[in-house]
C-alpha cells in the first residue's frame, strides 16, 4: 500500500483508526499471572531491601513480591496501599529505572532488575478491579480539613485523613479530580480512563467531598478557609508555564506542551486531535519527551526535541530519552531557541543558536540553525502561581515546608509539585500527601489549632 504524502500544517486524522489504537495502547502491557509468578522468583527477599529505601513512599517491596509469589495477591496490594494509595498509578508512571529498580541488587548480580513496577501494577490492579477495600475509617473525629487541589498529593492526603476519621473537603479548580494523573501523564501510560477508576476506588473510603471549579483566589481565600477548617493542605501543583521570551512566540502553532497533553488526555477520539507535520518541542524534561512521543504517535512526520544543554542535564531519564528515540523522535542538544519565523501569523520555522556550556553557563558559538516547523510545543517548565498564598513563606518560587510538610503557618501544610525541594513525581506527591496527613492528624489530636 502506498501511503499518501503527509499533509502540511496542523491537521487531524493523520492516521487510520487502527494506527491510533495501536499507538496509544498500554506502553507496558500488564503481566499475566504466569508472568508475574515467574518474575517473583527473581526477587531475593533482601534484608532491609535497597529497593524499599529507594522508593519515595517506602513500599515493602520484598514483602509484596513474596505475597504475589504465594498467590496472596490481595495481601500484596494491601502492603502497597499501606504506604502508597496511588500504588497503581505509580506502578505505571514511576521512572523505576531511577527509583526502586535502580537499587535492585539483581542489577549487579545479573544485569537485570526485578520488574518491580510491573509486579506492583499486577497486585494493585487486581484489588482495584475487584474493588476490594482494605481500610475502614476510624470513628468521626469531628475535625474538618480543607485540601486545595485534587491531584495525587491532595487525594493521597485526603484518603489518609479520612482514614483517621477526619472530614475532608477538597477545592479543585477543574471539573474533574486527578490533577496531572488526569491531565498530564502520557496517554500510553494510563489507558482506559484508569486515572478516574483509581480515584473512584480511593474515594470509596468516604467522608471526602470535592468542590469542583473552585479556584483559590477567585472563588475562595486561605483566610476564609482558616476560619472554617481545623487544618489546610495545599496541593495545587504548578499551574503556570514559563515563556521563551523570543520573537514569534505569540504565533499560531506555538503551544504549551502541557496544554497539548491535557487536550490529548481529554480526547475521546485521538483522531480528532490536530497535529503538525513538522513538530519542534523545546525543552528537556519529562513533558518535552511526552509531548514529542505523543506528537509522533498522532502521526507527525518529523518531531525534534531541542534542548539547550547536554543529554546528561535532561530532566527526562535515560530510559525516557531512549523511548523517545525508539519512537522516531530526534533529540538535538545545545539548541537554544532564538526566534520563531511566521507566515500569515502561523509558525513556519524556528531558529536556534548553537551553544556550548561552560561551568553551567551557556555560550553562543555564533553558529545558527533553522528547523522547519508548523507546530512548536514549549516544555520549558511550570511554575507555582504564588498569588493568593497569603504570605506563606516561599523558596525559589515554591512553598517552603518542614519535614512534616508544614508551611510557615502552623495549620497550613503543603505537598507535591508546589513545594520547594519536590521531585516533580507522582510518587513524591503521594508520599507528601500521606506524610502531611500523618502530621495533621498528630497536630489535631494534640488539640493544635490556629498557630
Amino acid at each position, binding site marked *: 500500500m502506498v501511503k499518501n504524502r503527509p499533509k502540511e500544517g496542523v491537521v487531524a486524522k493523520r492516521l487510520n483508526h487502527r494506527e491510533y489504537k495501536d499507538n496509544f495502547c498500554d506502553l507496558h502491557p500488564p503481566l499475566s499471572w*504466569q508472568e508475574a*509468578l*515467574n518474575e*517473583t*522468583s527473581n526477587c*531475593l*527477599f*533482601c*534484608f*532491609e*531491601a*535497597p529497593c524499599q529505601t529507594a522508593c519515595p513512599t517506602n513500599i515493602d517491596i520484598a514483602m509484596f513480591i513474596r505475597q504475589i*509469589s504465594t498467590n496472596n495477591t490481595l495481601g500484596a496490594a494491601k502492603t502497597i496501599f499501606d504506604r502508597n494509595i496511588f500504588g497503581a498509578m505509580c506502578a505505571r508512571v514511576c521512572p523505576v529505572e531511577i527509583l526502586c529498580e535502580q537499587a535492585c*541488587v*539483581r542489577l*549487579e*548480580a545479573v544485569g537485570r532488575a526485578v520488574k518491580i513496577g510491573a509486579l506492583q501494577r499486577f497486585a494493585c490492579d487486581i484489588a482495584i478491579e475487584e474493588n476490594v477495600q482494605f481500610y475502614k475509617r476510624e470513628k468521626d473525629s469531628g475535625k474538618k480539613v480543607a485540601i486545595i487541589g485534587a491531584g495525587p498529593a491532595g487525594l493521597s492526603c485526603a484518603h489518609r485523613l479520612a482514614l483517621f476519621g477526619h472530614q475532608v473537603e477538597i477545592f479543585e479548580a477543574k471539573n474533574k479530580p486527578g490533577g496531572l494523573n488526569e491531565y498530564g501523564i502520557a496517554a500510553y501510560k494510563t489507558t482506559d480512563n484508569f486515572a478516574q477508576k483509581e480515584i473512584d476506588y480511593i474515594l470509596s473510603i468516604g467522608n471526602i467531598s470535592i468542590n469542583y471549579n473552585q479556584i483559590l483566589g477567585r472563588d475562595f481565600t486561605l483566610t476564609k478557609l482558616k476560619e472554617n477548617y481545623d487544618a489546610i493542605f495545599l496541593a495545587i501543583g504548578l499551574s503556570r508555564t514559563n515563556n521563551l521570551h523570543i520573537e514569534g512566540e505569540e504565533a499560531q502553532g506555538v503551544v504549551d506542551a502541557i496544554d497539548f497533553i491535557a487536550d490529548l488526555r481529554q480526547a475521546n477520539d485521538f483522531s480528532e486531535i490536530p497535529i503538525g507535520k513538522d513538530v519542534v518541542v523545546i525543552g528537556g524534561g519529562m513533558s518535552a519527551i511526552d509531548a514529542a512521543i505523543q506528537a509522533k504517535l498522532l502521526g507527525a512526520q518529523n518531531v525534534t526535541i531541542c534542548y539547550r544543554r547536554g543529554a546528561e542535564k535532561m530532566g527526562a531519564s535515560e530510559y525516557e530519552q531512549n523511548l523517545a528515540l525508539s519512537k522516531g523522535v530526534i533529540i538535538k542538544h545545545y539548541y537554544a531557541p532564538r526566534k520563531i519565523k511566521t507566515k500569515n501569523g502561523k509558525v513556519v520555522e524556528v531558529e536556534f543558536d548553537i551553544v556550548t556550556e561552560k561551568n553551567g553557563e551557556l555560550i553562543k558559538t555564533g553558529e545558527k540553525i533553522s528547523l522547519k516547523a508548523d507546530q512548536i510545543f514549549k516544555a520549558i517548565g511550570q511554575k507555582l502561581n504564588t498569588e493568593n498564598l497569603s504570605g506563606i513563606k516561599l523558596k525559589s518560587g515554591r512553598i517552603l515546608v518542614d519535614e512534616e510538610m508544614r508551611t510557615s503557618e502552623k495549620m497550613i501544610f503543603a505537598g507535591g509539585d508546589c513545594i520547594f525541594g519536590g521531585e516533580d513525581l507522582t510518587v513524591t506527591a503521594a508520599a507528601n500527601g500521606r506524610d502531611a496527613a500523618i502530621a495533621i492528624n498528630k497536630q489535631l489530636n494534640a488539640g493544635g489549632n490556629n498557630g
Partner: protein
Amino acid sequence: MANLRSEFIGIKSPNPFWLASAPPTDKAYNVERAFRAGWGGVVWKTLGEDGPPIVNVNGPRYGAIFTSERKLIGMNNIELITDRPLQLNLQEIKQVKKNWPDRAVVVSLMVPCEEEAWKAILPLVEETGADGIELNFGCPHGMSERGMGSAVGQVPEYIEMVTRWCKANSRLPVIVKLTPNITDIRYPARAAKRGGADAVSLINTINSITSVDIDNFAPEPTIDGKGTHGGYCGPAVKPIALNMVAEIARDEQTKYLPISAIGGIATWRDALEFMLLGAGNVQVCTAAMTYGFKIVEEMITGLENWMDKKGFKNIDEFISKAIGNVTDWQLLNLNYVTKARINQDLCISCGRCFIACEDSSHQAIMKEKNNKRHFEIIESECVGCNLCVNVCPIENCIEMVPLKAGMIDERTGEKISDKYANWTTHPNNPASG
C-alpha cells in the same frame, strides 16, 4: 578420550544411563525412541502375572511440586504396573532386544508372593532374550495393598525368599529394587544379598501427598473429590536416594553388592554423584518424563567432558571414589575449624546472609561499615556453620575457609591443632576414655 561403556553385573551397555521401569519404558514405541536418543539401557515397565490386565485410574495420576518459575522439582504418581497384556509386552521386549543387541534390556517383575507365580513368569522373560530381571519390591501404592511391591520390600525375609526363588528358577541376573519407605535401607539390602541378588537398585518412589486442593479440601491429584498417597520422585528425592545408596555401599555386609542408583537423576552431575557413592550405573525416570529422551545427550557429553578433564578413561576408574569419605558423625575431625568469608567483589549486598545468621545462627555478620550497607563476617562469632553460604544467591561469593594449624580461633580463643580428634575421644563425651 573418555569411554562411557558400562558393564553392570555382566550386562553391557554403551553408557551407564538407563531408563527406570516406568512410563518411558512401557512399550516398544517409547523404548525404541529412547535407544535412538542414546540411552544405554532400559528397565522395562513392571510386568505382572498373566491374566486380565491391570486397571489404572482414569482421572489424573500425577501430582507435582514446582518452583515459582513452575519448574517441576518433585512429582508423585498413583500409577500401577503395566496395564498392557503380558504377551504383548513379551513380544515387544523380544523384538526390541533383537533390534538393539548392544543395549541393556532388563525386565521388571511383580507377581504375587508365591513361588509358583514366579516360576510361571521367569521362563517367559528368559525366552525374550532380555539381559536380566529387576524385582519390583518398591511400588508404594495400589500393588502394596495386594501384598506386592513395597509390601514385600518392607519385610526383609520376603525379599530374601523371593530373591532366592528367582535365582533358583532363572539363569538371568537378578536386580532387587528397594523401596525407600522403610527406616533403615541396609536391612532390605542385606536381605537381597542373602537371597543371592546380583545387585540392588534404589530408590523406588516415596510415599507422599504432593499438595492439597484448598478449594475442594482434597489431596492432589484428586479423583472425583478424593485423593490418595502416591509415589514421590524427581529432583527433590535425590538427597534421600544418595544417602541410601551410600549406606548400602559402605555397609560391611553389602559393600560389594552392585548398585543401580535411581532417584532424582536429571543431569550428568547427578549421575556422577551417585556413581562416586558406589553406584555402578544409574536409572532415570522423572527427568525423562519431564523433558523427553533427549536429555541423555547432555548426560553423555557432560560425563565425558568431566572424565577427560580429570583424566579418567573408563567409568570403573571413578566409581565408588567418594565412598571412603562417607563416615559417621562421631568420626568427624573436631579440630577442623572454618570461618565464612564474603568476597566483597562478588557481594551484591542483598543481606540474605546477614538475616540468616542474625535470626537463625550466631549473629556473626555485620550489616554496615562506616554507616554504609556492608556485609562482613565477624570471625569472633562465626561457628562456621555454612548457613550463609547456603542462602547466598551468588555462587562462590561466600567461602568457608579452614583455619591453619597454629592460628587462633577468635571465637574460642584456642589455638588450632594439627591433630585429628573426634567425639569418641572428646573430654565432654561421657563415653570417652
